């Protein structure tokens, strides 16, 4: 099976300059990331703030240029494409942002916003209006809303509009950068369900960049965990959640609230990405760190479930993910909500 998108050794540093514009170091946002996503797969990239996951998302679409590394889409070298060829290619790769308020032009009606990519790529010529109507109903909005302005919509509705706009160019790959993080829980559930449905029906490939492991558990087929600009663990979602191999992944999963109180596993804050620790970047916070970890940087190791930890095979077993007790009464009562929303 070949990957739809494959990145190798991506690096992107952002120089920090002093008042006179002289470089005085760099934020090592993405510091050697290799990643692939198969067609039709939902890959989640998770991590805490500053881990580089948003920068990675932009690098994967070549919205920003990597300092080094390679990038292939369906086997084609994206970095070798000319500006015009890249523009054509972009039609098939779209990005959805966290902030539905910032991502829509306030001076464009909904119809104009969704029709813009159609015009840009010359799609559905002469029947753009019908296509916009189709796209709106696809994301659960009434087509009559096409003439309205972004400010007339709630956050959830705006995110639906942003999704419709992303779908307009008929992409194969969508990258969602925290697409539901700004939404209230009840609205978030609507949008998560909508995205999951669209991915399935349209056979989309989706890269979900998220800090919310609850959302990731619901939708991801595969998960990559980032820490300080590197992927520290990557594997099938259920394998990774049930049997996390990297100490950071274990701590991250244990810290998610709602599983009963557990002693906090990690002390301190994430170190600065300007000067990441030597050797294994996690050694300063790792409860299992050995002197060797300070010296030698571990590589991702393993076949399908990979972790970048020298001692991943000798760590004490991870505390098991305790699955919530199925609650038949609650499920039954909650099913009434779904009946209500089925179109």
């Amino acid at each position, binding site marked *: 099976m070949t990957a739809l998108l494959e990145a190798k050794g991506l690096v992107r540093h952002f120089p920090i300059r002093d008042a006179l514009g002289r470089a005085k170091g760099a934020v090592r946002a993405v510091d050697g990331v290799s990643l692939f996503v198969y067609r039709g797969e939902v890959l989640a990239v998770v991590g805490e703030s500053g881990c580089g996951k948003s920068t990675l998302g932009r690098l994967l679409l070549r919205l920003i240029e990597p300092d080094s590394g390679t990038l292939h889409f369906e086997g084609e070298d994206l970095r070798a494409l000319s500006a015009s060829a890249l523009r054509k290619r972009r039609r098939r790769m779209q990005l959805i942002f966290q902030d539905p308020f910032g991502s829509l032009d306030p001076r464009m009606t909904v119809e104009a916003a969704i029709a813009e990519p159609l015009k840009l790529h010359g799609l559905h010529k002469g029947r753009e209006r019908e296509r916009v109507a189709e796209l709106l109903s696809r994301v659960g909005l009434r087509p009559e809303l096409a003439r309205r302005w972004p400010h007339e919509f709630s956050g959830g509705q705006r995110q639906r509009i942003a999704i419709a706009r992303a779908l307009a160019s008929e992409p194969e790959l969508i990258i969602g950068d925290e697409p539901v993080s700004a939404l209230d829980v009840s609205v978030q559930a609507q949008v998560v369900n909508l995205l999951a449905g669209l991915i399935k029906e349209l056979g989309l490939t989706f890269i979900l960049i998220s800090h919310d492991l609850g959302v990731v*558990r619901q939708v991801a087929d595969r998960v990559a965990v980032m820490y300080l600009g590197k992927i520290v663990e990557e594997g099938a979602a259920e394998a990774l959640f049930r049997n996390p191999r990297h100490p950071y992944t274990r701590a991250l999963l244990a810290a998610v*609230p709602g599983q009963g109180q557990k002693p906090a596993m990690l002390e301190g*804050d994430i170190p600065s990405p300007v000067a990441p620790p030597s050797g294994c970047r996690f050694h300063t916070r790792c409860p299992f760190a050995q002197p060797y970890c300070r010296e030698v940087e571990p590589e991702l190791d393993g076949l399908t479930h990979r972790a970048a930890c020298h001692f991943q095979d000798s760590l004490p077993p991870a505390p098991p993910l305790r699955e919530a007790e199925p609650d038949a009464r609650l499920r039954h009562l909650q099913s009434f909500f779904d009946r209500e929303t089925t179109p």
Partner: protein
Amino acid sequence: MSATPWALEVEDLSITFRTDRGTLRAVEGVSFRVAPGRTLAIVGESGCGKSVTSLAVMGLLAPNARVGGTVRLAGQPLDDAGRRAARGRDMAMIFQEPMTSLNPAFTAGDQVAEAIRAHEGVSLRAATERAIALFERVRIPEAARRARQYPHQLSGGMRQRVMIAMALACRPKLLIADEPTTALDVTVQAQILALLDELKRETGTAVVLITHDLGVVRDHAEEVLVMYAGRMAEQAPAARLFDRPEHPYTIGLLGAAPRLDEKRGRLASIPGTVPDLYRPPPGCRFAPRCPFSIAACDAGQPEFRPLEEAHRAACIRAPLEAALAA
């Protein structure tokens, strides 16, 4: 000495705002009590009134707010002036974004020392020493050095620790924490919530935890109040609420919140959006989104009534099984 076992009693709180668009009824008929050393979580989505409720208790609302109802702190009724006087001494509050509550021009240590001096007539040196001791108490590493740093030199988690140190400076009877960890990363959030729990146990401070995160409620609260569109939807001990929620909004919210420890095919999705509080629906405010609603739900406000001991809900259809079987 007061005879009341409650650190905080709020009765029939109402908050309205006069604005250009008219009168916004932000909160209506909200009552709750918190015992010393216990945490009451007030949970709900944006606009449910959870934050304005806490600001009203603290006397921190803007002048265009009209506040009705009574607030008693350790049995003492507090009017507006009383709330101002008690603030920072008998009750303290921490917010989501500690950067906006800290003065960028003063060191972290000086700000906490000033808070101590404002309420206790001690020397600056004594106050500074106490501030450093408090920093150690909230587990700020290298407390003395951190005390000399400015807020921008501290991480988000450290700033929240400074805020907690400041809140604890005067040993308050009540600590209101409004989304205290929402801006923090999950590993740091776990540290801060564990710290709040530990301090609550040690000091006997009552905690009101305002949050949208049901997972946080599950792990850190003994009592829960669910609010919807400015009114109380349901109130119960936390174990009971998660085990046997009765209000349709609580049931929907629990189904909508994605959990790490539960992979569901589909999240329950509450249709529609919250009502406009300038023109709230005439009956139950949740009725327009509720799959269990009947005509009577639109007729009038549902009474917030007891279902079991210490478990109350504002729903005429509760208990739902009986209603559905009928």
